[in-house]
C-alpha cells in the first residue's frame, strides 16, 4: 500500500519545493534580523557570520522616525486587540443569540443589515468617521481605535454568532426551561458554555484582523504614542535610509505573540478559518 514509488518521490519533491518557496521569506527575515548592518550589506542571504541580537534590543527600546519604542507599540497592540475582542464578544454574543432566537421579520432585517455591514468596505465611511472621532475629542486616543475596530468588526462577529445559534438546537434551552430555569439562567448556564467554540472563532478572526491592521491606526493614531505594531514597524522605513535588519527584527517581535497564541489555540484557529471561509 504505502510503497515508496516514483510517484511518491515526485510528490515528496514537490512538497519540498513548495515548502522552500513558502519558507524562503521567513528564512531571509530571521537571518537578516540577526545580522549587523555591514554583514547584511555584504551578504544579504547567507547565514550570519556573527549572529547578534543587537537589532532586537535597538528596535525594542528606541523607535524609528516617530520615536515610539517598540515595547510601547507592542503594549498598544495587545491592549487594543484584547479590549476590542472582549467588547465584541460581550456585545455580539447576546445580539446574535437574540437575532437567531427571535423569528420575527425585524430580526431577519437586522441580520441582513449586519451582513451588508460585512460586505461594505469601511473605507467608504472613513472621512465622516474621522471627523466624528475628532468632534468627540478622541483624536489620537486608544479609545478611538477601540471604538472604530468594534464598529468595523461587529457585523462579522454578530453574523458568526447568529449563524452558530441558528444551527444550535433549541432543545438544550428548552430542556433547561422545563427543568425550571429562567431565560437568563438558561442562557448563562447552558448556552454560554456551549458557545465556546464559536467564541474562539470570533476571537481569532477579529483578533487577527486588529493585530495585523495597518490602515486604521495609521489614520487614527499616527504620530501619537498610541500606535500599534504595524505602524511602528513602518516608522523604521526612513526617507533616505531604511534599516531592513531593524525592520525584520521588529517583524519577528510582532509575530511572536501571534505564534504563541496559534500554538496554544491551534484547534480554534483552524476552525475559525474554515468557518470564515464557509461564511
Amino acid at each position, binding site marked *: 500500500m504505502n510503497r515508496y514509488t516514483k510517484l511518491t518521490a515526485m510528490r515528496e519533491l514537490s512538497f519540498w519545493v513548495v515548502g522552500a518557496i513558502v519558507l524562503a521569506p521567513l528564512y531571509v527575515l530571521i537571518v537578516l534580523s540577526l545580522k549587523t548592518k555591514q554583514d547584511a550589506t555584504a551578504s544579504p542571504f547567507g547565514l550570519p557570520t556573527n549572529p547578534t541580537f543587537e537589532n532586537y534590543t535597538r528596535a525594542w527600546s528606541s523607535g524609528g522616525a516617530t520615536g515610539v519604542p517598540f515595547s510601547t507599540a507592542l503594549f498598544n497592540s495587545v491592549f487594543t486587540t484584547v479590549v476590542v475582542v472582549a467588547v465584541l464578544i460581550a456585545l455580539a454574543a447576546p445580539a446574535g443569540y437574540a437575532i437567531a432566537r427571535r423569528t420575527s421579520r425585524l430580526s431577519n432585517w437586522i441580520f441582513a443589515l449586519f451582513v451588508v455591514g460585512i460586505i461594505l468596505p469601511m473605507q467608504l465611511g472613513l472621512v465622516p468617521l474621522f471627523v466624528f472621532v475628532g468632534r468627540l475629542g478622541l483624536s489620537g486616543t486608544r479609545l478611538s481605535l477601540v471604538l472604530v475596530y468594534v464598529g468595523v468588526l461587529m457585523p462579522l462577529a454578530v453574523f458568526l454568532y447568529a449563524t452558530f445559534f441558528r444551527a444550535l*438546537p433549541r432543545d438544550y434551552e*428548552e430542556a433547561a426551561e*422545563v*427543568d*425550571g430555569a429562567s431565560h437568563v439562567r438558561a442562557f448563562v448556564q447552558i448556552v454560554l458554555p*456551549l458557545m465556546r467554540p464559536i467564541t474562539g472563532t470570533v476571537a481569532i478572526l477579529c483578533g487577527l484582523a486588529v493585530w495585523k491592521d495597518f490602515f486604521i491606526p495609521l489614520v487614527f493614531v499616527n504620530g501619537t504614542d498610541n500606535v500599534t505594531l504595524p505602524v511602528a514597524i513602518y516608522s523604521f522605513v526612513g526617507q533616505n535610509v531604511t534599516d531592513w535588519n531593524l525592520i525584520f527584527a521588529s517583524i519577528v517581535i510582532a509575530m511572536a505573540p501571534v505564534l504563541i497564541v496559534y500554538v496554544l489555540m491551534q484547534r480554534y484557529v483552524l476552525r475559525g478559518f474554515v468557518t470564515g471561509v464557509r461564511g
Partner: protein
Amino acid sequence: MAEVRFDRVSKVYPDGTRAVSSMELEIGDEEFMVLVGPSGCGKTTALRMVAGLEEISEGELRIGERVVNDVPSRDRDIAMVFQSYALYPHLSVYENIAFGLRLKKVPKDEIDRRVRDAASVLDLTEWLKRKPRNLSGGQRQRVAMGRAIVRHPQAFLMDEPLSNLDAKLRVQMRAEIARLQSDLGVTTIYVTHDQIEAMTMGDRVAVMRKGRLQQVATPQELYDRPVNLFVGGFIGSPAMNLVQARLEASDGDGSYAVTVGDQRLSLPQELIAARPALRDWSGRELVLGIRPESLQDAALAADAPADRRLRAHVTLREALGSEVDVHATIAARSAETEHVRELIEDRGGLETLEEGGETTIVGRLAPRTTAAEGETVELAVDTAALHFFDPDSGLGIYAAQTEGAVS
C-alpha cells in the same frame, strides 16, 4: 401528581399550519397516556403545549386544577424527555441529573441522595462522572430519564424517547419505562408513532391524525372496536385487510352474510347483536375489515364451516418462525374509498390498490401451514372478529356512537 386536561385546545403556527385542532382529552392522575399517530399529525405539538414550549392558540389546558395557558414552562412542574435527549453536553451525568434540583435550591445532601437513587434505579451509578458524549445511546436515554425522575414532577412528558435506539434496546427500555412509571405513579404523556409501543405501554391510547383526535381508549378497546377506518388500519400489525364487500340478509330468518367478490361469509348472530347498526346495511356496499390474525389455514381447522372460508391465491409466504404471514389475492375489489387511500398514504404508501377485481390480503397463519407460493389456499375466517366500516364516512358500524369516539 395531577391530571392533565385539554379543553378544546388548538394550535395554529404563525405560518398558518393548524397542527392541533380542538383537542379534547383528559389524562387521569397516575395514568400512562400514549399519543400515537403517523408522522406530522401533531403529537409533538400537543406535548409541547403541555410543556409550555409552544403557545396555546385556542382552548384551555389544565394541569391539576390550574389553567396553565399563561404559566411559563419553568413553573409548570413537569419533566420532559426529548427525542434528542438534549443532555447538557458540558455537564457530567451527575450534573445533568442534578440540574433541575439545583435550580429549585434543594439542599446539597438531598440532591446527592436523590441523584444517586435515580442513578441506581437506572443503572447509571458507574457513569455519573462521565460526559454525555462518552455514553452509549441506551445510557444517554437513561440519563434523560434520570433527569426527569429526580424531580418528582407533576407529570412526565416523553417525545418518542426510544426512537433513537436499536430494536432490541427499544423493547427492553419499553418495559423499563412502563415499570418505572407504574412504580412512581406519575401522570405520563408519551408520544410515539409506533403503534406497538402505544399498545404495549399505554393505560390508554389516544390516536391522532392530521391534528385531530380520532379515538381514546384502552389498547384492547382500540383493537376490538376501532372507531373508524383510520384507527382500524393504524392499530395492528400486519395491518387490517380492507376489502369492498356487500352485506346481505338471508331470506327472513334474521341471519346475515357478506359477499366478498364471488365468495360468501355467513355472519354469526353474536356479531349482529354486537353491531345492531349492521341491520340497516343489508343490500349495501360497505368496507369489510379482516385482521390478518383472524385468518387461519382451513386445512388446520377442520371444523371451520364451509360458509366461513375464503379461497385465495398465495403470492408470497413469509415464515417468521412462530407464525407464517401469507400474502394472497382474492377475487374482490379493494376498498377504494377516499379514507382507505389516505390511510395508505399515512402508512407510507408502500402498498398500492390493485386495479380490477383482485385484492391482496395478508393472513397470519400457524407455522404448520403448508400454503405455498403459487398455490390456492382455503382460509378459515374468524367471522366473529370481522370489522365493518361505512365507505363514505369511514366510521365503524356499531350500535350508535362508540365509546371513546371523538366526533
